[in-house]
């Protein structure tokens, strides 16, 4: 008797809990698992971290600027080019083809990085 009551209580609590979850979050979680992988490159202290990123084809790479100075992300082969990114601004690019993609910051050209797509 007690066990069934506690199970019932738990079930009710769970139902109430689920009911308070924002339905948007649930759908985002579901679709993220279906989408290709997203990987992040952090820009900070005049450097790209990681400097060399290896990802499978189809990956969307997102650069996010955590530095207190603006930077850009520009492919040396002209494949992609961000607008200027101030602190906390992002740039994303989806790499559909395999290859090596060197890039740099066009404002501070000593900052270089590479994405290797397999």
């Amino acid at each position, binding site marked *: 008797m007690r066990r069934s009551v506690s199970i019932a209580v738990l079930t009710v609590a769970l139902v109430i809990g689920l009911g308070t979850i924002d339905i948007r979050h649930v759908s985002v979680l579901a679709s993220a698992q279906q989408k290709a992988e997203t990987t992040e490159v952090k820009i900070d*202290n*005049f*450097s790209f971290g990681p400097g060399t990123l290896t990802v499978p084809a189809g990956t969307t790479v997102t650069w996010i600027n955590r*530095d*207190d*100075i*603006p930077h*850009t992300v520009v492919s*040396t082969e002209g494949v992609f080019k961000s*607008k*200027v990114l*101030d*602190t906390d601004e992002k740039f994303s690019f989806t790499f559909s083809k395999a290859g090596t993609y*060197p*890039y*740099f910051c*066009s*404002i*501070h*050209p*000593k900052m*270089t990085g590479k994405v290797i797509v397999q």
Partner: protein
Amino acid sequence: MAGKLKDEILYDHNHDGIDRRGFLKCMAWAGTGALCVMSGGVLKSYSLSRLPEMSSKESLGELSFVQISDSHMGFNKPANPDVAGTLKAAVDKINALSAPPEFMLHTGDVSHLSKPEEFDTVDQILKSAKPQDVFYVPGEHDVLNDDGKQFLERYRRGSKGAGWYSFDKKGAHFIGLVNVMNLKAGGLGTLGHEQLEWLEDDVKHLKHSTPIVVFAHIPLWSVYPEWGWGTEDSAQALSYLKKFGSVTVLNGHIHQTLQKVEGNVTFHTAASTAFPQPQPGKADSPGPMKVPAEQLKSVLGITDVNYVQGQHALAVVDLTLA
């Protein structure tokens, strides 16, 4: 060199008893441009304290101008959330100079993000400066997103290509160069073939005695390549200026004052009016250096330059905002 106890005068340009080696020794001791210039001897005659002794400027043909740099309008982080305020303080400093400058040079990074409102704000603030004539060259922050088109339209001055130009003032020849365009991955500042050809032609027929002032954003000497503080093809530019007796190179970009003398060429970088940056290699990266609020104005500044016709060297003096 060994066994010499007395310094020999090697190159007494102004006949005041101080030579290049003495100047360099002084600089090594002082660590900054300012002190050395004041007591270094080559420029002794022109220290600010002596300027009142000089008779009417016009009859001496004296030229006086100010260099400001790296105003970064739009920057709002530590150590300076108010770059408009510090630029205004710089203008106040300029307006308080005992020898009022005729014009100003802005060696770039006028704006922080190349936004029109940022350029507008600088223009507005500089309207209250006594010297209303301002000559600009762009920094890398001024040519974002549009290959410098906006900068050219605002500050053109009949310039060629990416915005290089020259003009004359009281017998001195001023050359504005652009070394922030077409930067290559892993590279430094660059002048490019077209600009170098123009420069060679521009100075070809000038007399050797013409004092030359070159101004550009990124230093035209190798300050610290690891941080991009240098220009790849500056050696070629300087080779065209070898014949001149006095060449003064004024740069910005590194947000601190540094000076180097090499033969007849004096290289000088100005402080920023916005925020300081660390000395070469003294931090992980060349980004904004955080200092306590009460110290901020002492690491920002302007550069006052004076020249007397007939004399060789220009007097370059750095002044901090506080």
